[in-house]
C-alpha cells in the first residue's frame, strides 16, 4: 500500500529525533550534577558520537570495514590547529607552514567546517582509489591509507610538529558544543541513509550481485558515502583536538581505530541507533573502568583494577558481543516511532526493509 509505505518513510525520520533526545537527556543530566570531571567525560563521549556516526555513514551503509577513518580524523584535527593557533605559536612550533596559513587566525567554527571539508576532499581522493577494490581488499587498503597518514604526520617536522605534540589549542569543546555537532552528524547520517543513494548502497551491502543486476553503481554510492563520512570524521577530529588542547599523531592511530570500531560493533553496525548506543554503552563502561583503575573504597577495603585492565576488558566485551550477539546490542534495528501504535519501541522489522 503506497500510503503505508509513505508513512513508513516519514517515520524513519523519527530516529534522529529520538537519538537527539537521548543525548540531550544525557548532557542535561550531567550538567545538573555540576561535576567538572563528568562534564569532560560527556564532552568526550559526544565527540566520539560524532566520530562513530561519521564512521557509520560509510561502514554501516556499505558494509565495508574501514580502518582508515582515524586518518581522516587526524587530517581534520591538524587542519583546525593550523587555522586557529596564534601566529606566534605557529612561527615557533610549525615554522614550515605556508605564509597564508601561518598568518591565519580563524574563528573556531569556520575552522571546524574547513577541517571537515579538507577531510572530505582527502576522502574523495583516497576513496576514488581504494573503493575500486572489493570488500576485504578495500579494508586492508584503508589500513594502508591510515599508515600513510600516520607516517606523514609523524615525520613532517615543520608542518605537523612530528612526534612532539602541538599544544595550545583553544579548548572550546564542552558538552553543549559537542552535542550540537553530534546531533548534526546524526541528522545528516539519517538523511543520507534514507536517501536514494543510501538505500542503493545498503542494497549492495546485502547482496552485491543482485544490486549490480538492478543497475546500482556500487562504486559511486560508496564514494559519496565515504565523502560525507569523511566530512564528519574530520569535524570529529577537530573537536577532539579542541577538547584536549593537545595534538599528537599517536592519538590518531590504532588505539582510536580500535575504540571506534568496538563502539560500532558492540552497538550494532547495521543501524544508526546501534552506532549511538555503542558509544554510550562503551563510554560509560570505560569511565567506570577508569575509576576502578584509580581505585575505590568500599567500607574498609580499597579496590583497584590493575592498569591496562580497561583496554583488556573492552576487548573481551567486544569479542563476547561478536560471539553472543553478532548483530550488536540493537541487532541492526532502529529506535523509531512505529506506525499504527505510536509509541517508543524497537522496530522489529529487518533494517533491510526500512
Amino acid at each position, binding site marked *: 500500500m503506497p500510503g503505508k509505505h509513505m508513512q513508513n518513510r516519514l517515520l524513519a525520520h523519527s530516529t534522529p529525533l529520538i537519538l537527539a533526545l537521548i543525548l540531550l537527556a544525557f548532557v542535561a543530566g550531567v550538567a545538573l550534577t555540576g561535576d567538572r570531571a563528568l562534564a569532560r567525560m560527556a564532552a568526550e563521549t559526544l565527540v566520539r558520537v560524532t566520530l562513530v556516526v561519521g564512521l557509520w555513514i560509510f561502514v554501516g551503509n556499505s*558494509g565495508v*570495514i574501514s580502518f582508515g577513518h582515524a586518518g581522516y580524523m587526524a587530517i581534520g584535527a591538524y587542519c583546525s590547529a593550523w587555522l586557529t593557533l596564534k601566529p606566534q605559536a605557529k612561527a615557533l612550533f610549525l615554522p614550515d607552514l605556508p605564509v597564508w596559513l601561518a598568518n591565519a587566525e580563524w574563528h573556531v567554527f569556520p575552522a571546524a567546517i574547513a577541517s571537515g571539508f579538507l577531510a572530505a576532499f582527502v576522502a574523495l581522493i583516497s576513496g576514488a*582509489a*581504494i573503493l*575500486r*577494490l*572489493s*570488500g*576485504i*581488499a578495500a*579494508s*586492508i*587498503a584503508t*589500513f*594502508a*591509507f591510515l*599508515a*600513510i597518514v600516520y*607516517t*606523514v604526520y609523524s*615525520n*613532517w617536522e615543520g608542518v605537523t610538529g612530528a612526534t612532539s605534540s602541538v599544544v595550545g589549542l583553544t579548548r572550546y569543546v564542552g558538552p553543549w558544543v559537542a552535542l550540537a555537532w553530534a546531533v548534526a552528524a546524526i541528522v545528516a547520517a539519517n538523511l543520507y541513509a534514507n536517501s536514494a543513494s543510501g538505500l542503493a548502497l545498503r542494497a549492495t551491502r546485502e547482496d552485491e*550481485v543482485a544490486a549490480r543486476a538492478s543497475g546500482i553503481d556500487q562504486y559511486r554510492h560508496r564514494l559519496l558515502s565515504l565523502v560525507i563520512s569523511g566530512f564528519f570524521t574530520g569535524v570529529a577530529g577537530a573537536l577532539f583536538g579542541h577538547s584536549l588542547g593537545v595534538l599528537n599523531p599517536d592519538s590518531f592511530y*590504532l588505539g582510536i581505530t*580500535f575504540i571506534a*570500531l*568496538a563502539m560500532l*560493533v558492540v552497538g550494532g553496525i547495521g543501524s544508526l541507533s546501534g552506532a549511538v548506543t555503542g558509544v554510550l554503552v562503551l563510554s560509560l563502561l570505560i569511565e567506570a573502568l577508569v575509576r576502578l583503575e584509580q581505585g575505590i573504597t568500599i567500607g574498609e577495603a580499597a579496590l583497584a583494577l*590493575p*592498569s*591496562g*585492565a580497561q*583496554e*583488556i576488558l*573492552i*576487548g*573481551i566485551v*567486544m*569479542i563476547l558481543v*561478536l*560471539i553472543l550477539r*553478532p548483530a550488536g546490542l540493537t541487532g541492526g534495528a532502529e529506535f523509531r516511532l512505529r506506525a499504527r501504535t505510536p509509541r517508543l519501541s524497537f522496530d522489529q522489522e529487518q533494517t533491510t526493509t526500512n
Partner: protein
Amino acid sequence: MNTAAQLFFDAASLGGIYAMAALGIALIFGVMNLVNFAHGQYIAFCVFALIVPSTDAVAVMFLGRAPAFLLIPLLLAVGAAAAVASEYAVFRHLRKATPVAMMISSFALGFVIQNALLATYGGRPKAISLWPELNTPVTVMGASVPLLQLIVILATLTVVAGLALLLKKTRIGLEMRAAAENFTMARLLGVRANVVITGAFALSGALAAAVALIMATQTGVADVRMGGQIMLVAFIATVIGGLGSLPGAVAAGFLIGAVSVLLQAYLPLDARPFRDAFLYTLVIVSLLVRPQGLFVPSSAKPRV
C-alpha cells in the same frame, strides 16, 4: 657490484621475514577466510616469552637462556600453542560468523594480547641480547653481510620448501588444500574440519615464533609495538599476493622487502623518513592495477 650485492642481501633477508609473516596470515585465510589481525601480536607474544615477566627496565632472559637446539623448538611450540589457544577461545565460536565479524574479533583479540603484554612487561622497549654473535658481518661476494641475514634467507627457503612438501605430500596438507579450495565441499567429503583448522593455526603460530626469533636477534629489542608494523606489511603482502594464495604471499613478501630496501637506498635524503608512505602508496597503486592480487587462487572467484 658491491652495493648491488649488499642491496640484494638486505632485500632478500627483509623480504624473507615479510614472507614468513605473510605465510602465517595466508594459511589461516585460506582455510577459514579469517583475516587474522592478531598475528602480529603472536609475534610480540613470542618475543616476550623469551624474557622473565616484569615491568623492570632490564630484561632477564627466561626461555632465551636455553641453548639454541632447545630454544628454537620450544619457542615454535609456544607460538603454536598461543595460536591454537586463541582459536579455541575465540575463533571456534565464530565459525558461522561473517568474514567481517571474524576480522573485527581478531582485531579485538590482538588488542587484548597487546594490552596484556603492556600490563605484564611495561611500555618501555627492553634491550635483549639473543645470539649477538650472529650480527657479526661476514664477507660474501664482496659484500659484508651479517651472518643473520644469510640465516634468514636460508631459513625462509627451508620453511617455504618444508611447507610446500607438507601441503603437497601429507594427508593433512592435502586436507588443508582441499579446505582452502572449498571448505563446505571438503567437509562433505570427509575432511576433518577441526583438525585442519587447528593444524593451520599451529603452523601459523610456529611461523610467528620464527619471525619473533629473527626479529629479536636482529633488533635486540623487545617492544610491545613490534608486532603491529610487521603485521601490516604481512597483510599487505597477502592481499597483493592474492588473498589465500600461499605462493602469492611469499612472492609479495619478497617484493615488498625488495621495494622498501630500494626506496631506502635511492630516495632523496629529505624524503627518507616518509619511506613507508611511499611504500603504502605503491601498495594501493598495485592493488588498483591488479585488484585480485598477483596470484589469484581459484577459490577467490565470486560464486553467484
